[in-house]
């Protein structure tokens, strides 16, 4: 039977504030265990939470960016459950009235198709502490609690069940990652858990309207794992149904690196959170004035930048998507394209998407610290453009720039990489190659035209790649036809 997968994602993004959401403890990642704690996040009796204004401002920012309705008035609620990562016995979250309702995220699939993913809501809440199990601490019979993370501000971004494939889910999460980084509200570091994702997955026979029983998957801490977990889970559900079994509503844990999802909590533990409005916090009101204030400070958003790149630099959708995935990468491209000139925009794009990203990956560097500056890249592309160097030689120049940080013109002079334009020198090299390869010459003349590639290669070798391959080929054809 042909099944369709229905996926909804719940994404948690840690906000980039200095202090926690309801107290003045540091919200920084790491620190000695329990170093970033105070009376409030430890949940000591008699303390009162006070809302961090920056958290609201950050949330308004993303609400505006996704076109959500930012409600004029909302409040916080207590969500109760017992777990040692939560010292108060409840988490302060939002329930009936979240700060943002609706909104949408636009994604582009590999085939160029655009999909609009609707959001249900975005709300603010506090993160829980970290639990360490077993013998890491040298005592396998207990668990250990570090409350540094307790009270760090989180956004929960809930999508409608609009996603249909693992690819769509991964692309959606990447887009959210791009967005929170553009808005400068979350560092997006998935390894440190700054951006986390849970997925609700169900399948149904294609063409039907009812949703199947859904399974929640937690603990996917990378784009790749999200994709693998969904692919595994849709296959598991399909096999279960086809074997005549039933899907049980449950929470499963993605168990990296071993792969498959494992059941986590059974229905017996199904939560009854007993939400109620937190009496320790007063209602929050957001007026037009505040919204406008935030709106004025909004950066250019990824979708707008992508469209502008397509128009202004005449780039294909794919290029524009890759280049605008990170604000700093987009800035680098714009700087290089601006310096190289509009005619070279596509060439700049190719170099940025190819060699620049490769070098950053090899050197584990950020684009801000790219050893090849945007100006140097532009200059190098200028050298290709005016025929000083060939595209092939440019690869070597680029690698030398990456290793030394030197100016491309200096490198070309120092290494003698200037393209040979002197026809006499090329003619000499061609004649040498033909005379040292009499057999191949015969075969070419006998009709094996494919050998032209061999001759070009030999001449390029003889000239250390400095001859213009186009000119070499023309000259070879001429000599061989005579």
């Amino acid at each position: 039977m042909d099944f369709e997968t229905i996926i909804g994602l719940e994404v948690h993004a840690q906000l980039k504030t200095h202090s926690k959401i309801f107290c003045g403890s540091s919200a920084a990642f790491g620190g000695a265990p329990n170093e970033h704690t105070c009376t409030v996040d430890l949940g000591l009796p008699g303390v009162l939470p006070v809302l961090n204004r920056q958290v609201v401002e950050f949330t308004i920012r993303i609400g505006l960016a996704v076109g959500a309705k930012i409600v004029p008035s909302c409040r916080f609620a207590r969500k109760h459950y017992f777990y040692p990562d939560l010292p108060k016995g409840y988490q302060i979250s939002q329930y009936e009235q979240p700060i943002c309702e609706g909104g949408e995220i636009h994604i582009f699939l590999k085939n160029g198709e655009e999909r609009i993913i609707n959001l249900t809501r975005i709300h603010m809440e506090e993160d829980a502490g970290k639990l360490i199990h077993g013998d890491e601490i040298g005592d396998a019979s207990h668990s250990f609690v570090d409350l540094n993370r307790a009270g760090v501000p989180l956004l929960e971004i809930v999508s409608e069940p609009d996603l249909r494939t693992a690819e769509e889910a991964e692309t959606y999460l990447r887009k959210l990652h791009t967005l929170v980084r553009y808005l400068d509200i979350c560092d997006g570091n998935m390894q440190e858990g700054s951006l986390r994702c849970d997925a609700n997955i169900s399948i149904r026979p294609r063409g039907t309207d009812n949703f199947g029983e859904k399974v929640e998957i937690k603990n996917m801490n990378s784009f790749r794992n999200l994709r693998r977990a969904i692919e595994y889970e849709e296959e598991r559900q399909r096999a279960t149904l086809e074997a005549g079994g039933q899907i049980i509503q449950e929470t499963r844990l993605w168990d990296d690196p071993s792969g498959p999802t494992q059941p986590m909590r059974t229905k017996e533990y199904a939560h009854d959170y007993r939400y109620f409005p937190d009496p320790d916090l007063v209602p929050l009101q957001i007026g037009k004035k505040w919204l406008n204030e935030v709106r004025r400070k909004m950066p250019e958003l990824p979708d707008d930048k992508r469209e502008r790149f397509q128009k202004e630099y005449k780039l294909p959708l794919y290029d524009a998507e890759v280049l605008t995935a990170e604000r700093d990468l987009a800035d680098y491209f714009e700087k290089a394209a601006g310096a190289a000139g509009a005619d070279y925009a596509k060439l700049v794009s190719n170099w940025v998407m190819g060699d620049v990203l490769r070098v950053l990956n090899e050197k584990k560097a950020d684009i801000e610290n790219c050893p090849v500056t945007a100006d140097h890249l532009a200059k190098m592309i200028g050298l290709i453009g005016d025929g000083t160097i060939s595209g092939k030689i440019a690869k070597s120049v680029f690698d030398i720039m990456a290793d030394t940080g030197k100016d491309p013109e200096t490198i070309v002079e120092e290494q003698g990489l200037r393209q040979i334009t002197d026809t006499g020198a090329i003619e000499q090299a061609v004649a040498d190659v033909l005379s040292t390869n009499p057999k191949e010459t015969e075969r070419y003349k006998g009709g094996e035209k494919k050998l032209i590639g061999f001759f070009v290669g030999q001449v390029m070798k003889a000239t250390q790649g400095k001859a213009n391959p186009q000119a070499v080929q023309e000259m070879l054809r001429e000599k061989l036809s005579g």
Partner: protein
Amino acid sequence: MAISREDVLHVSKLARLELSEAEIEKFTGQLGDILDYISKLNELDTKDVPPTAHVLEITNVFREDKVDAPRIGSIEEIAPEFHKGHFRVPKVIE
């Protein structure tokens, strides 16, 4: 009666309270009495009264985003069990 024995069992389970048979009986009665008393409020016509989220008529109390919380001198002293910088708790497995 405003509350059933099942309600009391459910709530005590959520609150991780172990109740004796006598206590279940007693609390079912007492909680029922409290709910009956509170339900007097239902006699009021609140059709035109917006729901109250908070008894204080103030909104938007904020703190600025500054790291300024005083650290507790010794967490270890207030922790029931403490080990290598961590609170030690009975083993929980996710």
